[in-house]
């Protein structure tokens, strides 16, 4: 698995709790998060993000789960974390991340992508590169840049 951010790929070793694969770190569901710094918190589709603890907002990285690409709840979670809670750390899309979805993920404030080994990482990098000219203004719901999200 690799982490894609700002056009660069780096190694990433996290796995779901029930995944048998070797991994340096296991993802912890938001409901089970005990506040420990450095936890790999996973916001799942049915997680409740309407409230967010200070410990959560202090995490450097939060994973947003997309179990299948058609499940759009992660987009609402990302936007809620950025806008309502002013989360300024890294939001990583985890799960069924596909090249044709990354545009919308970026626009709700997700800024990094966990790229599974069976996904063509180079195609994803290229897709993101092509999106650099994406327009978003006026009443077309625009991008939410993490820096702007801090209240």
């Amino acid at each position, binding site marked *: 698995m690799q982490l894609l951010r700002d056009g660069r790929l780096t190694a990433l070793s996290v796995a779901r709790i029930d995944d048998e694969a070797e991994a340096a770190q296991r993802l912890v569901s938001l409901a089970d998060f005990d506040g420990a710094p450095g936890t790999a918190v996973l916001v799942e*589709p049915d997680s409740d993000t*309407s409230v967010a603890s200070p410990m959560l907002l202090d995490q450097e990285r939060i994973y947003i789960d997309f179990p299948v*690409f*058609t*499940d*759009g*709840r992660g*987009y*609402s979670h990302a*936007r*809620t974390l950025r*806008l*309502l809670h002013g989360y300024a750390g890294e939001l990583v899309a985890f799960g069924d991340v*596909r090249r*044709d979805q990354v*545009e*919308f*993920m970026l*626009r*709700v404030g997700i800024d990094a992508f966990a790229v599974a080994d069976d996904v063509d990482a180079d195609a994803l990098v290229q897709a993101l590169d092509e999106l650099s*000219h*994406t*327009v978003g*203004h*006026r*009443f*077309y*719901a625009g991008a939410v840049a993490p820096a702007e999200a801090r209240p």
Partner: protein
Amino acid sequence: MYQYDDTDRALLKQRLDQFRDQTERFLAGDIPADEYQQLRLRNGVYLQRHAPMLRVAIPYGTFTSEQMRALARVADEYDRGFGHMTTRQNMQFNWIPLERIPDALEELAEHGMHAIQTSGSCIRNITTDPLAGAVADETEDPRPWCELMRQWSTFHPEFNWLPRKFKIALSGAEADRAAIEVHDIGLRLRHDAAGESIFDVWVGGGLGRTPHVGKVIREGVPGAELLRYLEAVLRVYNRHGRRDNKYKARIKILVNALTIDVFREQVDAEYEQTRQFVQRIEPADIERVRAMFATALPREDVVAAAPVEVPRTFEVWRKQNTRAHRTPGYRVVLISLKNPKLPAGDITAAQMRGVAALADELTGGDIRSTHDQNLVLADVPERALFSLWQRLGELDLAIANIGTLADMIVCPGLDFCSLANATSISIWDQINERIDDIDYLHDLGDVKVRISGCMNACGHHHVADIGILGVDKKGVEWYQLTLGGRSQRGARIGQRLGRAVAKADVAEAVQRILDTYTAERQGEESFVDTLDRIGMEPFQERVYATAA
């Protein structure tokens, strides 16, 4: 009407390039079919029984003669010379090969048209009153608000993967010609005591397998807050709508499961928390768009009567197919696409060009499409009516059946649609053959018949006076009848008459229902009022009496 600027055009171009690339990758085997399905749906492409179907968006049912001619070119060069108007005021093509769809879309994009979000689990084309801006019972022209909602909902990053499709309709008039009570969100635009634009909001209406009339969730949302409130509704739905069963995924199921009061509490909480992060519509924003829709009609002298003796057929057409305009000296003209020679809602490329030419001459190029699959020329000078009628006649478009039983809404049915269980078009033909006397139709008055070829209810049979639903029983087509539905103000769902009738007997059953109505009605009493007064039994007795 709204004029596309560089931003709109850039977005369109970008989306077109993206879809062309996606289609090429799919055809090369680089995108799995299940993923490409979702991508093509968001660009209006279905794979149908014979060929792909392309659904082109006509935002809030307003387009120009130039755009109509572009649609005609697509019909001629990519399809088989036809287009089909839908109940969401869009136009569908049924015969374009998949690999040619990007080229057809490019042709349309040059004229500011596209197929974005005309299908898929996202916010669909926003619909409104096809007579907007032209009629006297209107508080305010809803189209500028529709345009701002179009911009807001187009490519909204958070709401592109909703549990299910999402339909919004807006009406700004006393009469509801947009069926707002049977939409996921229905909006009624009115003015408060200070003359400010405010919205009453319905939620959870819809047809399909489990028809529901929407419920009022909030009254008097200020215009400035409209997008903020809509976002709150959409976010609650996106997070809590069911995703385990596509037949229970519409917002109406969520609203019903929670009750409207609990749903309202959740939306209110979301709205209060997040409204500050969503764009306000400032007065300057709405004024800028309003200016684009304002039509300054040249002063017209009212013509008391037609200059010379005119044929009775013209008088009949004028009475049936035109409406009063808010400006004296003008009429609103409805063009019927319910010619028995073609499937309901179909229009040929030649007719499209003909209508475009008439619009150029008479309405500054403005053309509307209606919820019931017809067209409108909204601002026609009274003095031009007679020649308009003659020229529509040359195009075979002067049939005087607007608002009659023959003005049926008919889905494409089994002949085209891969979801359908039964044909709809053959039932349309059967009823047209049986009931073809125009005087009889006019005498019946406004009796709505609507036909759906399956329970997805694209023909809106639930909200017709007489609804006809095709079902499949062990490989044989049968038709269920419902009576007493209504989509206007005080919307209601029709009630099942009784057991389904065989395909060959549908027109006979409809005739018997009409016979019951004409025998029982008192004076000008409407179908629904007669039904409410006498109940279902007289209709049932007549239809099932001699084992139709």
